[in-house]
């Protein structure tokens, strides 16, 4: 019997993009989670015994840990989890033809100015397209320099030692309930290795790769940046992710070895029914430099705090984040910086926009261990409220055990002012254009760090969102 699933939709405010499809998955586990399900996942992936054991152990940790009581409202999550298919064979999951994609979704893609080929990918249409060619030629170049950029599954298969040496070392299963869950049921994600001294000009873009295998609901990414290497990894897209899932729980582990520089950029726009609970952390060694650039749009609730553990002398960590909370959405985001070694420095810049009944919270931790002499950290969080009903809070946690550390924290909340709106309108912009310009100005300091095509998409998206904010 074909399953008749409602595919929920597109992240833009009104949830108007839901539609029904008749595709039948080739294989999926039954709803809910137990050891049997985990065994099935591992068997499907043809994994070595050690990985199965890891998964089962993680499951026990997951079962033992209570639901977090802080952050966002997770009271309805258990119900969602009980209905979740923890593993759906990826290829078949999104098989669908372009003709099946509803007109209004196509129009949204068009208005966003997303290239045709990419639209197909976003709509889950598994067609071949040009970027595959691009990807293949890049892949050849990367391979010739010893770079590995694979799916996480292929990483485990093809590079078992490297994989085992690092997997779970940055974020152990016991770290938190959702890291445990991911460690038990992970599927999809990237495995990246950059050899020492290799500098990559072209960013490693996940969407090249997930073209063949869709980004999983329990994505797992492991990145190892070798000594003195330089690279930039980009994941996601501002276009609405259009998915059957209502729960996304990823784990991203990054090891930035001595004197390496690594940047991880992710922009995601989830559908409004989505719980998005992600753990992403980098170990930053001596003299190395890590930057997280994190954009969170959409979802019902996002809890995400990219972190940098500054392990070696002179390590530097930076977290730049933008959160957008529309009606009924809660973005609980921020960052963590942990100073373990002397002369380490960090900065967190977080910008949030709340519209309608949207709520954004900044939650951050700055910890300086005893002995991390002359550690410096600076946190700046700015919130912009669009309507009277919008809400924002800040929860900065600061723990300092080292006298010579210097830590700064600054938070601002602003409302889109009537005077600002009038000023722009008196120059001929209508209210939505004026609002969009103010919002774009607000996120400018972060948007200018994005690759151009992402910044352009983000701007367009904000324009679309602001159209609904006035009147």
């Amino acid at each position, binding site marked *: 019997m074909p399953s008749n699933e409602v595919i929920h939709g597109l992240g833009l405010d009104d949830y108007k993009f839901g539609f029904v499809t008749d595709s039948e998955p080739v294989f999926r586990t039954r709803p809910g989670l137990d050891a049997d399900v985990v065994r099935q996942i591992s068997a499907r992936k043809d994994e070595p015994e050690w990985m199965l054991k890891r998964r089962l152990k993680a499951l026990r940790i997951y079962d033992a840990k209570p639901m977090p009581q802080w952050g966002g409202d997770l009271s309805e999550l258990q119900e969602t989890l009980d209905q979740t298919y923890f593993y759906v064979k990826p290829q078949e999951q999104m098989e669908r033809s372009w003709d099946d994609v509803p007109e209004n979704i196509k129009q949204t893609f068009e208005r966003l100015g997303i290239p045709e080929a990419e639209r197909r990918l976003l709509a889950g249409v598994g067609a071949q397209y040009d970027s595959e060619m691009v990807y293949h030629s890049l892949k050849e170049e990367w391979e010739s320099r010893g770079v590995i950029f694979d799916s996480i599954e292929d990483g485990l298969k093809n590079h078992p030692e490297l994989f085992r040496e690092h997997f779970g070392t940055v974020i152990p299963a016991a770290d938190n309930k959702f890291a445990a869950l991911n460690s038990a049921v992970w599927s999809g994600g990237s495995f990246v290795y950059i050899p020492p001294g290799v500098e990559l000009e072209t960013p490693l873009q996940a969407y090249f790769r997930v073209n063949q295998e869709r980004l999983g609901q329990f994505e797992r990414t492991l990145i190892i940046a070798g000594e003195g290497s330089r690279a930039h990894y980009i994941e996601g897209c501002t276009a609405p992710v259009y998915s059957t899932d209502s729960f996304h729980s990823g784990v991203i582990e990054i090891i930035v070895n001595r004197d390496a520089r690594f940047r991880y950029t992710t922009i995601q726009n989830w559908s409004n029914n989505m719980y998005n609970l992600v753990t992403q952390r980098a170990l930053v060694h001596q003299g190395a430099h890590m930057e997280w650039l994190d954009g969170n749009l959409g979802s019902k609730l996002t809890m995400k705090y990219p972190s940098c553990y500054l392990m070696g002398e002179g390590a530097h960590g930076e977290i730049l984040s933008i959160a957008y909370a529309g009606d009924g959405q809660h973005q609980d985001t921020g960052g963590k910086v942990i100073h373990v070694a002397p002369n380490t420095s960090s900065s967190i810049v977080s910008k949030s926009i709340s519209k309608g009944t949207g709520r954004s919270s900044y939650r951050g931790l700055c910890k300086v261990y005893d002995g991390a002499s002359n550690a410096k950290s600076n946190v700046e969080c700015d919130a912009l409220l669009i309507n009277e009903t919008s809400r924002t809070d800040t929860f900065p946690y600061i723990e300092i055990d080292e006298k010579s550390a210097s830590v700064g924290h600054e938070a601002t909340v602003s409302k889109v*002012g*009537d*005077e*600002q709106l*009038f*000023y*722009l*309108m*008196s*120059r*001929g*912009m*209508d*209210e939505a*254009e*004026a609002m969009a*310009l*103010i919002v*774009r*100005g*607000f*996120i*400018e*300091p972060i948007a200018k760090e994005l690759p151009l095509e992402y910044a352009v998409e983000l701007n367009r998206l904000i324009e679309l969102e602001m159209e609904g904010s006035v009147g």
Partner: protein
Amino acid sequence: MNDRPILSVTGLGARVAEEDQDILKGVDLAIRPGQIHAIMGPNGSGKSTLAKVIAGHPGYEATAGSVFFQGEDLLEMEPDERAQAGVFMAFQYPVAIPGVSIANFLRTALQARLENGEELDLFDFQELLMERMELLRMDPSFAQRAVNDGFSGGEKKRNEILQMAVLKPALAVMDETDSGLDIDALKVVAHGVNTLKAENPGMSVLLITHYQRMLNYITPDVVHVMVNGRIAESGGPEVALGLEEQGYEKYRRAQVA
């Protein structure tokens, strides 16, 4: 034809939205195409309020009378519609728009004037912007600064005139553009306004000021004195010179009487 006012304000009463007291208490004013009118008057007499009501500030509401611009009922139009119809106000206190560069701001403002689907030619825009900045003796790098963000008083005023020069209005309302400008800047701004006027002789100006010095450079056709929400006197440039001598005392006495 030329006798038809571009702006006619008749019996205009206005107040802060939701308040009881009228600030404007019956203002009459008719500006013909190409004319320059100056409004002077004591602090708090309602000059800025008149400017904002003309531009459509949502914080004020008209309680009586009418405002017609090129035959259209301005009070029925949104601020952006008024701007697109050719009304421009240089603010007395312009606000900052952090993160939005002057160039981007003006580009967006010009783009907003085009029909749906039409795209502003960026090359032409860049050329216009640079030419206007040169006219106002502004460093080209200034275009990259965020609008009014951290600007000095004089920079803010000059930026208002830059916007005016780029947007080329049919009616420019300048609210105390001269305050805060140093002597050299005042000359530059006045030269800018006169140049715009020469390019477009039909452009009308409503110039609000406290000082004669601005009027030395931009010669008004008519000078009005506003006192307590009304035009108390109108005349030629000699009215302004008289004020310079005697202040507003005689109007105040007239009111008490």
